[in-house]
């Protein structure tokens, strides 16, 4: 392991994120795994935030227009589809560098719990997509009315 300057590691969250990123890479390398969240590698990169019952997914989708993103949820599967379109470049432009890539994408995430598609919220802001899943509802015991007689 290459030792990075210690300064980088002063933030505990940065450290945790780096460790999780490595763990995630290992998990995906062993796909399929028994992990609750299952995603085959692909674009876009996704981060998953959870509590006991709730989850938020985030992804960086710079330059993707709202109308070019489609999120579909069915039972315990979430699919993120879309298209990152190339820029409109003037005729006769000479490129010095071309590093930005474009193209279509489709990513499926297997959720650890079923989700009501009607309650999924998604927000795109400054190229960051945030998908808030409705919290898993605990199985509520059904009350049974006992009738007399």
């Amino acid at each position, binding site marked *: 392991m290459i030792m990075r*300057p210690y*300064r*980088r590691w*002063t*933030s505990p*969250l*940065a450290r*945790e*994120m*780096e460790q*999780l*990123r490595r763990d*995630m890479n290992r*998990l995906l390398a062993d796909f399929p795994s028994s992990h609750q*969240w299952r995603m085959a*590698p*692909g*674009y*876009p*990169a*996704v*981060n*998953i*935030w*959870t*509590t006991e019952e*709730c*989850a*938020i997914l985030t992804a*960086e*989708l*710079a*330059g*993707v*227009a709202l109308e070019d993103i489609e999120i579909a949820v069915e039972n315990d599967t979430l699919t993120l589809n879309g*298209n*990152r379109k190339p*820029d409109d*470049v*003037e005729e*006769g*432009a*000479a*490129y*010095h*560098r*071309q*590093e*930005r*890539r*474009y*193209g*279509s*994408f*489709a990513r499926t995430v297997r959720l650890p719990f079923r989700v009501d598609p009607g309650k999924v919220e998604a927000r*795109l802001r*400054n*190229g*960051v997509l*945030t998908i808030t899943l409705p919290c898993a509802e605990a199985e509520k015991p059904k009350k049974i009315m006992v009738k007399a007689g």
Partner: protein
Amino acid sequence: MSEEKALQIEETEKREVAETGAERTRDRLAFVPRADVYEINDAIVVVADMPGVDEESVDITLEQDLLTISGYVEPEYPEGYELSAAEYRIGDFTRAFTLSDQIDRENIEASAKDGVLRLRLPKLAEAKKRTITVKAG
């Protein structure tokens, strides 16, 4: 529409800034934004991917022939949540370019939309290309 090209994750990975020379004053992770730089007759255009950055959090400086673009990202950590899986890290963006052409500093245009920074750097009149006809013989 005919077959679309699929965007590969390897083509979009974030590259961390190498710690060489002067250090940054902010003690935060910094990435090199992917950028397209192209030249048209009267301007140089720089387009850089900086997800999470808007027009308020972008910094552009042009000193001599060095153009530096920086984008500051305030990460939003949902309160009460734990990070269960992280395929990408969040941090600032910064990149510097050396411009060969003379730029009209007064008329630099910049805009940020959907996490993409676009810069239009107009060339000074005398720097615009003149077509030179090459005669045979």
